[in-house]
């Protein structure tokens, strides 16, 4: 029954938890107090804040840029900015939103620079962080019993990248945050300093463009 179709939709990717720290796990001093201590100059408190978010930030930057090096640079710049401007944080939003706002801005800058450079080819990183070479036909042990499927996957990956490249930086950012990071449109709006409505419309444009591009490349 067509009316049932909606019921089988997945409810969207689950929200990715802000990363936990490795090593002796220290749960949050109520984050407000930690931030206040950091604002008062405590490097220990700031380091603890960084630990709560740096992995998630790195993951986002890695997926958007396709480069470990670029991701590192973005992560570094984001937290240095946070350190420098921590005094400006006035608890009007969550710290998570604030730091992501900084990161998304840096990512947008990166995407804009890349668009204007054009000779950069983004790469895809697989689950172990290795660059997936999308252009070779060499099968490896990962393709296992089905080398044809592996090739298909790589080829699809290339098409996806190429489709994503056609989006404007903002469209790509919204799509990334919604589809790959599982954030809610309202949060995305806050992070990009815009409204939920605008984020929605950007998402619509992005999905339209992606569909058109993927269909074209088939």
């Amino acid at each position: 029954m067509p009316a049932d179709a909606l019921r089988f939709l997945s409810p969207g990717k689950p929200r990715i938890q802000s990363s936990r720290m490795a090593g002796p796990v220290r749960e949050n001093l109520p984050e407000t107090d930690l931030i206040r201590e950091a604002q008062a100059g405590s490097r220990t408190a700031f380091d603890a804040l960084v630990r709560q978010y740096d992995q998630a930030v790195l993951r986002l930057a890695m997926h958007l840029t396709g480069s470990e090096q670029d991701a590192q640079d973005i992560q570094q710049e984001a937290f240095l900015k946070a350190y420098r401007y921590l005094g400006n944080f006035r608890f009007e939003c969550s710290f998570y939103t604030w730091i992501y706002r900084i990161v998304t801005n840096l990512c947008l800058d990166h995407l804009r620079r890349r668009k204007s450079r054009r000779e950069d080819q983004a790469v895809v990183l697989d689950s172990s962080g290795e660059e997936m070479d999308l252009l070779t036909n060499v099968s490896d042990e990962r393709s296992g019993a089905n080398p044809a499927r592996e090739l298909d996957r790589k080829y699809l990956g290339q098409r996806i990248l190429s489709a994503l490249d056609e989006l404007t930086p903002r469209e790509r950012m919204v799509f990334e945050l919604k589809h790959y990071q599982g954030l809610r449109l309202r949060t995305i709006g806050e992070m990009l300093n815009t409204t939920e409505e605008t984020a929605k419309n950007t998402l619509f444009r992005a999905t339209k463009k992606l569909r058109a591009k993927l269909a074209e490349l088939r």
Partner: protein
Amino acid sequence: MNCDLAQENIVLAVYGELPDDRAHQLEQHLATCERCRQELEAVTALQKAMSVLPMAEPSPSLVARTRLRLDEALDAMPSGGWLRRITQSFMRGASRLQSAPVMASALLVAGLAAGAWGGYRAGLHAAVSQAPPNITPAPTVVSDPDNSQIAGVSSITLEPNTENVEVRYSRLVPQTIWGTLDDPQIRELLLLGARGRADAAVHDHSVDLLAQECRARHECAGGPIRNTLMVSLRYDKNAKVRLKALQGLEPYIAVDTRVRDAILEALLKDPDADIRSEAISLLAPVEADSSVRDVLQTVASQDDNPHIRTVSRQYLEQVSQIQ
């Protein structure tokens, strides 16, 4: 609902953003509209296709390397965040304290030599010990302008049609202050020392002294000192520092639930056995508390250290005997 709206709602539905009432309306529309049903399939297919692009998890070594790089970069930011923050914090503090003109205009250099705390000038010491015991003498501050450095140039103005220039700049003037641990100015400096990381010895010693003051119940009721000790207990990498901070929080355990919770957490999670032991003994006055008992029960069965398990069990038995 028309098809244009439906198609937007389909995207929202696929991404879990469609409110329930609109979802219902959409279902109604889909029941009668073949085009939109195909649209739903297409968007669902897009979502599946885009998911083929893997979300790589940063490798542990990448995370570690990145953290190290960030650490170094933060350490190398002296005239950036940290110094400015100290200045701001100090300027806020200076308005509260009796501000000598020297302090209002000077900036502190980060390195308060640990040795300076140990020694007091003989003459000053004699003067202090001769003073009536219930009067705290005002602390003495000595500037060393000969060793001052230029911190930054804030403006340069050229007088038109001349070669005359006005330059505004600031100097970092090293200063030394002698006073007692009770003195608010000294306390303010200890707090700064405990928060900064420019010198590990200064940091550790500052936490130690603050904890000592609190433990001796020398009017440590202020929030900032207690918060600094709590942050040190939870996050400092040096076990000795965490232990001192823990001991400094002792007077607050019975009166402040946040302190009690911080100590319970240390008991559950601190990797150092001495700290966990100390935490148990400090919890004695509140051992009848249900949250304390819960934690003691967990520790009694799950702690790695047999001695700690034994001690926890003993405490639990004591409590049940009292009741």
